[in-house]
């Protein structure tokens, strides 16, 4: 299910981006999305977890679960640098990142930071990647 809100940043999207509907078409969450959600919940006990499958906006087959954007709001991030926060997320999702997940955009915020700006951003448009090595992260 597409959980991210369509933010006003839509107006910024230009060119040939197509906003990913992810698995929203069928209404079912794919297994990778489900795994990401579960692992982040276990590792970080987030207050807010917004996850969007953005694969539809990239040069991969329909139904892919390769490109994600996640906003994780957790008090466990207090006192940690952005790099440390991202590494925590990576550690929780090590299997997925070594496997199917090719791109992961992360917004890692403390509860106070999230309250200032409670939006899941939008990712930049795909520029084609490497068609020769499609599917290889």
């Amino acid at each position, binding site marked *: 299910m597409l959980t991210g809100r369509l933010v006003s*940043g839509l107006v*910024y*999207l*230009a*060119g040939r*981006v197509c906003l990913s509907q992810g698995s929203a078409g069928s209404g079912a969450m794919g297994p990778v999305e489900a795994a990401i959600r579960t692992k982040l919940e276990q590792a970080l006990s987030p207050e807010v977890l917004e996850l969007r499958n953005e694969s539809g906006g990239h040069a991969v087959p329909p139904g892919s679960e390769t490109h994600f954007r996640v906003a994780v709001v957790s008090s466990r991030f207090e006192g940690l640098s*952005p*790099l440390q926060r*991202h*590494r925590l997320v*990576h550690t929780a999702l090590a299997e997925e*990142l*070594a496997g199917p997940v*090719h*791109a*992961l*955009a*992360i*917004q890692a915020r403390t509860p106070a930071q999230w309250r200032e700006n409670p939006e899941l951003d939008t*990712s*930049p*448009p*795909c*520029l*084609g*990647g*490497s068609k020769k*090595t499609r599917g290889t*992260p």
Partner: protein
Amino acid sequence: MSGSLRRAAAALLRWGRGAGGGGFWVPGVRAAGSGAGGGGSAEQLDALVKKDKVVVFLKGTPEQPQCGFSNAVVQILRLHGARDYAAYNVLDDPELRQGIKDYSNWPTIPQVYLNGEFVGGCDILLQMHQNGDLVEELKKLGIHSALLDEKKDQDSK
């Protein structure tokens, strides 16, 4: 600072056409491509990231990025007027592509190194750009961000 930075960030968020749009060749940028020389070893990569003050690993080149996230890094550096940075295209070299991920213990591209130190990917660079940290970090490297001049113009009005 926040006014001009916000405008710059907003412009960036329009995810400009990137260097592929033509005419964005920045003098001084070395699109070193596979100049890493079949490089995947930790020693080689260590030398590579320390060779220049600003080093980025991209999909594509600054002139023609092949990934929106890599393009974002290129655009941010362009906004700051950082001209003389080393850019390596991982799409040219599978060993480099995997090697740099192992080296930094970071699973994705793009990767940004300042003064030989891994700083993060696109998200972190964007954050640093928006909160003013990038201007400071570039200053420490002796690089005067173009956005400071924009701010001066603003202040003097």
